[in-house]
């Protein structure tokens, strides 16, 4: 029997329309807008001024906060202006606009695609390189990778878990990467193992990507201490806690981190970026983005420079059809709907999904009939039917007792609800209030 996590979970229609499509490099755009906050923490500190000439790969902003990452120029050219641009959440954030001139990379970046298996740098040096390259979690959470690699005092990493699950419907960027860059990912895994000083790595891939499982399994035999696991298709298996449970059987404690159970987890996209940073000296300036949707002429996987406006990606698949009602950055379960196609691609952008307007409207809210489906699908063992009214009525102490902060916002509850109740909307509201209360309590 295939491995999977036990509690909760759903199986939405997979709709992997762009599965098996090769990764096409998208032409470098005329201008890019590079946001200064593409990671969890505080915005990176700007290092360049308007009018300066930059080369591709050049550091333009330094991540100084604890959860911040470095930002590099993804193109070469002149800094046109430093201005605000709408980010994925609709806030206006500072971004560096670069007017493209040619495509001149920094000299020390190796642009060849020759596989380099030999890992020269030692642990601390690897972490240093990853920090410099501005690598953050490419699965979407954008947690800085170097922070994960710095295991806190008193904790010990025992194994590495690599996330090739891609449980979100529609998205295929990780799948495409595993098919085309399998060896590079495996070398990346060895690099991360060296940095963490662990002997074993597990790669988890859902069983709807049999070709990727086959390739990875075959190639992994020539690497020491890498095991590839085929997992049963179940959402949200790509959630860090769920994946660790599925592969190792260990449960990350409530409020804890994977390293509490001796695990450090990375997405395959991140692992590939680590390979490029360490072996090719290449900072994180591009990534694979799936552009898809039921009405999209030619759903594709593109290699895109960070900062490229979403509108160019949509044009590359034949443009937006008249009946497009929603543009989602990410997948349909956890992605964010964006209000304009001029938003730039960031490090955490795994896909662009165009939804036809027949599917965009929410159904009207019906009364809760206490069918308990939300309770049975919740992968964290929470009770969404209860959390929603508690959040609605602002009963925050009860919310905290009911473990609202454990919610990973996977959306399985709202997806499943036969009465179309906006469970997750209210749970998010409750989480943000309770989070503030907890933080202010800690300060006292």
């Amino acid at each position, binding site marked *: 029997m295939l491995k999977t996590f036990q509690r909760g979970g759903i199986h939405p229609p997979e709709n992997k329309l762009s599965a098996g499509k090769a990764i096409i490099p998208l032409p470098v755009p005329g201008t890019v807008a590079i946001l200064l906050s593409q990671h969890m923490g505080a915005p990176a500190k700007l290092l360049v001024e308007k009018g300066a000439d930059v080369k591709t790969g050049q550091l333009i902003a330094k991540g100084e906060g604890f959860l911040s990452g470095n930002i590099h120029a993804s193109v070469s050219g002149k800094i046109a202006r430093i201005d605000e641009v709408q980010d994925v959440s609709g806030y206006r954030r500072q971004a560096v606009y670069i007017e493209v001139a040619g495509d001149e990379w920094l000299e020390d970046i190796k642009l060849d695609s020759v596989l380099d298996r030999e890992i020269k740098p030692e642990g601390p040096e690897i972490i240093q390189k990853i920090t410099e390259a501005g690598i953050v979690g490419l699965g979407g959470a954008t947690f800085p990778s170097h922070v994960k690699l710095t295991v806190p005092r008193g904790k010990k990493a025992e194994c590495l878990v690599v996330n090739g699950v891609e449980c979100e419907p529609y998205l295929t960027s990780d799948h495409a990467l595993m098919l085309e860059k399998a060896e590079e990912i495996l070398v990346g895994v060895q690099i991360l193992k060296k940095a963490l000083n662990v002997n074993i790595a597990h790669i988890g891939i859902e069983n709807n990507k049999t070709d990727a499982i086959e390739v990875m399994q075959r190639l992994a035999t020539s690497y020491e201490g890498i095991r590839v696991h085929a997992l049963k298709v179940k959402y949200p298996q790509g959630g860090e806690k769920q994946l660790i449970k599925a592969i190792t059987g260990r449960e990350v404690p409530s409020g804890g981190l994977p390293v509490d159970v001796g695990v450090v987890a990375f997405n395959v996209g991140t692992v590939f970026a680590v390979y490029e940073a360490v072996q090719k000296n290449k900072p994180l300036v591009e990534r694979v983005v799936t552009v898809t949707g039921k009405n999209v002429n030619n759903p594709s996987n593109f290699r895109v420079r960070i900062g490229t406006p979403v509108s160019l990606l949509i044009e590359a698949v034949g443009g937006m059809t008249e009946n*497009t009602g929603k543009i989602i950055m990410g997948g349909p379960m956890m992605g964010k709907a964006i209000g304009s196609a001029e938003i730039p691609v960031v490090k955490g952008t795994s896909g662009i999904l165009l939804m036809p*307007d027949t599917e965009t409207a929410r159904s009207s809210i019906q009364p809760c009939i206490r069918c308990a489906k939300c309770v049975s699908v919740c992968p964290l063992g929470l009770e969404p039917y209860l959390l929603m009214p508690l959040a609605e009525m602002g009963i925050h102490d009860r919310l905290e007792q009911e473990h609202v902060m454990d919610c990973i916002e996977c959306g399985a509850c709202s997806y499943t609800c036969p009465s179309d109740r906006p469970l997750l909307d209210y749970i998010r509201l409750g989480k943000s209030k309770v989070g503030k209360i907890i933080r202010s309590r800690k300060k006292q």
Partner: protein
Amino acid sequence: MSKLLTVSPSPHISTDLSLSKLMYGVIISLIPAFLVTVYMFGTGALIITAVSVASCVLAEMIIQRYIMKVPVRIGDGSAMVTGILLAFNLPSNIPWWMVVMGAVFAIGVGKMTYGGLGNNPFNPALVGRVFLLISFPVQMTSWPMPIESRFQYTDAITGATPLGFLKEALRNGEKVQDAMSQIPDHMQLFMGQMGGSLGEVSAVALLLGFAWMIYRKIITWHIPVVMIATVYVFTGILWLADPTTNATPLFHILTGGVMLGAIYMATDLVTSPMTKKGMMIFAAGIGIITVVIRKFGAYPEGVSFAILIMNAFVPLINKYIKPKRFGEEVKHG
């Protein structure tokens, strides 16, 4: 851009399951039991089901429009389900106006006084049934004979249900074995050839409906299986202790309202617990109370009361029985 895009929080997709699909799924699952009851009780079954469904739907509509002044939502099918289930809990010769009274009570008092669908603590159909049982005990405990009186309505020839017959026989000091010889055999009981409420007689039809509801993921197995198993085990212990005064466990689960109660009445989504563990405690409680009433109570049958009593415990169960949270116990290894 020519038109505005929709911006809303995730998730952006949802199942095509809806409240009304759930309700109509329940109605579809009731078709086999309905066919059996029409075969067994004929005219009476048709009249009572029609009157009950019409009264429930109309009562809900009138209350929503004229008393609560809220949008009428009889289309969701929940009032229809209550109507069918109320009819299935009545004898086939009960006068139609009593059915109307029961339906109005079920919807009016059992459901709408609490705020309508989703808010009622007690199963509305059972509230209606118990109201009628207490108000009209004679009519509610006279049971037309199956098949032979199916072209009569209130003038049908009546007899006792197997459970009623057994209780009476035991009261007269007879032995169970002697009483059993005058009761339909287990196969007839399984198919539904016995006196009883419209919907409760045929175990096989109800089990078909159960299989459909499991297949359509409308309910889970926990409540029906645990409740039937509890009744089986409890009556089994009694039977083993003294087979002269206790009927076999198989007799107990095939007669009366155990099947109907376990599959349709106790599983009412609104009035049953939210966690699997809670559901099993709830179902076991119903099983125990049912047997206690059958064995020691004045009534021959106790499923309705057992379910209503356990309905009252649901908020308590929900408060103390929580799902196992992820990461609550740290597992290592």
